[in-house]
């Protein structure tokens, strides 16, 4: 009861709960499209690529305002995405390796910048390193508002173009033949993915952010064979894991938020893989066993 009371009236806890729930819903929804388009790793590359953007934005402005840092992260993420696409289309390097290169180089650059900032005589910089693993306890209402606006806008676009995105994810060629522009739609979806990542940076951090995108979608897929339901379940899983992980990390002060959320997500995915009603192993095993027992003996 106390916890519910605090969730409503405690400033920190309320921000944390709201922020992580928003993040969970947005990344749960966009993660479905990333997973179905077999771009689960894209989120990993984009979130790692955002780190140097955060650092450069801070170095340029000496401001830790959420909007400034988010813009920096988004720009770096988009540049990372452009480089990935360029390498994929213009060289013979395969997409997986292209992602690997961009992810590591950008992240390495980000860590160098972070070290430079921390070595400087700048008291204001304290807290930038929280972008690595996330610290939901540090969320302030400004950030939550920004997260709500960016996330709301992303969800609005998904709602508007649901039919187009579904078609793109299932059959890109057919989408092109029908006159929908696959390159445009694909770019837009990746852009929205960047938005989801950007709003998760404070809470989950760049290193584990991709789990927020991939895990809820994978768990949801085990429970349903319909895309709309998958998206709904994924949003719910994301919100639930985000919320619980953030609360755990606030109550146990030394646990960073990102790892707490990821552990919860891991448990949910494992349970879903085992018991999911649509694709889960246990039901699958029971169904097969029942079928085997039901087979009639061949007549001679």
């Amino acid at each position, binding site marked *: 009861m106390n916890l519910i009371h605090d969730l409503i009236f405690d400033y920190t806890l309320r921000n944390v709960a709201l922020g992580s729930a928003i993040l969970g819903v947005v990344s749960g929804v966009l993660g479905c499209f990333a997973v179905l388009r077999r771009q689960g790793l894209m989120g990993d590359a984009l979130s790692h690529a955002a780190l140097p953007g955060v650092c450069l934005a801070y170095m340029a402005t000496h401001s830790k305002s959420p909007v400034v840092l988010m813009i920096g992260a988004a720009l770096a993420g988009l540049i990372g995405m452009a480089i990935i696409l360029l390498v994929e289309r213009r060289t013979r390097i395969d997409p997986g390796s292209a992602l690997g290169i961009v992810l590591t180089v950008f992240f390495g650059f980000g860590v160098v910048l972070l070290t430079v900032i921390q070595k400087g005589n700048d008291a204001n910089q304290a807290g930038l390193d929280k972008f690595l693993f996330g610290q939901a306890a540090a969320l302030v209402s400004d950030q939550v508002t920004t997260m709500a606006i960016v996330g709301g806008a992303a969800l609005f676009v998904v709602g508007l173009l649901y*039919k*187009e995105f579904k078609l793109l994810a*299932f*059959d890109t060629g057919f989408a092109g*033949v029908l006159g*929908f522009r696959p390159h445009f739609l694909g770019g837009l979806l990746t852009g929205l993915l960047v938005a989801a990542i950007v709003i998760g940076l404070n809470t989950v951090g760049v290193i584990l952010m991709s789990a927020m995108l991939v895990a809820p979608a994978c768990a949801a897929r085990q429970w349903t*064979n319909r895309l709309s339901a998958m998206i709904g379940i994924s949003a719910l899983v994301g919100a639930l894991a985000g919320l619980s992980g953030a609360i755990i990390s606030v109550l146990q002060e030394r646990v960073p938020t990102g790892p707490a959320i990821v552990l919860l997500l891991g448990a949910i995915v494992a349970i879903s893989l085992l018991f999911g009603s649509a694709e889960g192993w246990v039901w699958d095993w029971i169904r097969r066993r029942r079928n085997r027992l039901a087979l009639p003996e061949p007549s001679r």
Partner: protein
Amino acid sequence: MIPAISVRDLTVAYDEKPVLWDVDLDIPEGTLSAIVGPNGAGKSTLIKAILGLVPIAAGSIRVFGEPYRTAHERVGYVPQRGSVDWDFPTDALDVVTMGLYGRLGWFGRPGRQERRIALECLDKVGMRDYARRQIGQLSGGQQQRVFLARALAQDAALTFMDEPFAGVDATTEQTIIDTLKALRDAGKTVVVVHHDLDTVPRYFDFVALLNVRLIAAGPTEAVFVPDNLQRAYGGKIAFLHR
């Protein structure tokens, strides 16, 4: 009369290796046509180039006398079955409804009307009972029939099919060819990438023989002759029985 498809000097290359070389081809309206040739002849690439799905190195393509961009509303397409992920969370009815997305345009939502049309199309290919089945739980032949129903839902004047008979059961093959002949008899044009030489004379009234270059194109009885086949396939089809 303007041909349904008119291809001039078409060259397509992947990584500087030409897949299609200087192809000139007119496919008349109202025909059930086959594009035939050995593996790697560029058959799929030809229809993908016409549909604007692969970039062309040179040449021009007209569909009903127009560039594809403006003609796309009259064009239907059935890709190779292996080109999509059949584990995708959707059912047969939903996939067929996608055939109506072009007509709905940007932002338009499918409603009761679209659902009814999609069910009718599933019925035409004998798949109505499977409307709510997740597509991964269908057999290969059933999946191909769902794709055919999606093309029917498009109600296109010109339909392309990429290897619709690959790996399907006899019932499905019969359903597909009956449906295609019915489309042709209704005045539509159907272009099929086809592999099985034995069935070409029975199924198709127009044939384009392709092996990177266009070997020959015209009415089946004039074009589908040993001499042309020899040129398309080299020595590899010595025992073609007709």
